[in-house]
């Protein structure tokens, strides 16, 4: 594979292949930022990959009290899935189990337009007849009495079918320490981009997968071509100076947001140089036939 160079870091002349997804957004507020964040973290737990979690979810940004709907600190959460039906199911379950239950929280729509997904209009039944509907400035809210006080939830939120899931970067370092430094630096830069989430733990995947397996019934298995303990074998894609590889997966509300996140992530990681950060950066694809979004790394360098 031909390679480009950036700050002494080898950049593969390849592309990340990503897929169209449906997505929604909500804003969670609470009396303190700590509890808004707790609800968001709980709600987005076990939401790393649609393969087994039903959705991919993460924190997009913090919402300052001055900009939140009820004047309290908030967090904006994004959820991505493969169909509106699945997205609705995940949204309902996660808000019901993780936000409704969390001290002090309230929940609002985080995206306008598209097909409307139910928030409070299904959770209201938890109120067992004591729920109260309120329409303020044309927006319907549900007030549900709970043991702590009252849970306030907007009736519905919007969605988009323009979302993209599966943008990615592969960051290869000489050691686990330098590869992780590269990944952490990239994550820090990418999380500044609005409208994207990095759904894996801390934004980083240490066990990237390939499609299929030699075992029946497994739809994904370890990406052995990028496993450093197998790098001496003929099918390995790794060079001798690569000791560890991390992947960053990016989901975005728009293709532009994914492009921007990949660009700032790649540049931030490469800025560390090959000694402190990555020796090589690549991206994962399936030959370009499965996903309709392709992000060429050389275009990210432009």
């Amino acid at each position, binding site marked *: 594979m031909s390679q480009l160079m950036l700050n002494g870091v080898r950049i593969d002349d390849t592309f990340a292949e990503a897929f169209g997804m449906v997505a929604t957004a909500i804003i969670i*507020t609470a*009396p303190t930022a700590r509890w808004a964040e707790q609800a968001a973290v709980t709600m987005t737990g076990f939401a790393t990959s649609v393969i087994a979690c039903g959705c991919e979810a993460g924190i997009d940004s913090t919402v300052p009290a001055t900009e939140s*709907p*009820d*004047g*309290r600190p908030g967090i904006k959460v994004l959820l991505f899935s493969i169909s509106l039906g699945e997205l609705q199911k995940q949204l309902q379950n996660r808000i019901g189990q993780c936000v409704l239950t969390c001290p002090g929280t*309230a929940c609002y729509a985080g995206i306008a337009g598209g097909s409307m997904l139910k928030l409070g209009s299904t959770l209201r039944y938890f109120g067992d*007849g*004591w729920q*109260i*509907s*309120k*329409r*303020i*400035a044309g927006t319907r*809210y549900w*007030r549900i009495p709970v043991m702590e*006080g*009252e849970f*306030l939830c907007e009736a519905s939120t919007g969605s988009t079918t323009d979302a993209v899931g599966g943008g990615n970067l592969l960051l290869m370092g000489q050691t686990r320490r330098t590869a992780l430094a590269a990944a952490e630096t990239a994550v820090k830069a990418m999380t500044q981009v609005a409208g994207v989430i990095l759904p894996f733990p801390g934004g980083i995947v240490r066990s990237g997968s390939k499609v299929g397996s030699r075992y029946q019934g497994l739809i994904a298995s370890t990406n052995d071509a990028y496993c450093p303990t197998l790098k001496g074998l003929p099918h390995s894609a790794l060079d001798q100076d690569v000791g560890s590889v991390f992947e960053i997966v990016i989901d975005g509300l728009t293709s532009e947001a994914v492009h921007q996140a990949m660009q700032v992530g790649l540049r931030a990681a490469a800025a560390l140089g090959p000694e402190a950060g990555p020796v090589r950066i690549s991206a994962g694809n399936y030959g370009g036939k499965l996903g309709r979004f392709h992000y060429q790394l050389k275009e990210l360098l432009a």
Partner: protein
Amino acid sequence: MSALTFSLKAAPARRLDLSPLTPDRLRDLKQKEILGLALETEAEPLLVDDVFEVKGGDAAEIRFEGGSARFDLIGHAMSSGSIQVFGDVGYLAGRHLRGGHIAVNGDAGALLGSQMAGGRITLSGNAGASVGGPLSGELSGMSGGLILIGGKAGERAGERMRRGMIVVSGPSGDYAGTGMIAGTLVLLGKTGHLPGYLMRRGTIVLGRGAQSLSPSFADCGPHELAFAALLGSRLVELEVKTGKLFKSPLRRYAGDLAALGKGEILLG
């Protein structure tokens, strides 16, 4: 294009039904046709020309220069556009309003916004009895929209209200929100006796308390409600002065337990 302006020639000697003078009904009429429109009174009809001088042309924006407590049914059933009245209006202003904005720089008679379903009424002065309410025999009052009253409201404000919001900045009379079905009634000034009498659902916010509360309301204690913050910020957007009302816990009274009992009075 300038607003279509109706200037009052002289104080009317009779009550006037001004329901024909709305943006919806004047949209396609020429000035001459407007001058020839009949206005019902309690005796024989008058023509617009008998009562008003008419100037300008854009019927989407109507101005009444000068008002009267005999101006009834202003903006009746209008669905869009605006009506501004520089003076008082009589009974049933904004009755069956569906959209648009009626702004009155003066006082209004009884049944302001009666059975309105949408749109907005802004009143700088005082309103008569039964703001948003139903006429005799009608089962429900206002079913949507917003009424902002800068002054006082008479008795039974928000009577049998079903949806929407009424905000009264000054004092309100007895039986505010009587028979409320749902909706939000914000009474920032001192309120008379028995607010929420026989209310089923809905919210009444009392900024300065009431002369008496019905014993059929259950005291549920003070609460910090996210909903109150949301309502408070909406009122700030509407340029309503609420002071510190929504910044501290509100005492919740559930009731009226003599009716369905799923309504509430929130006391600041």
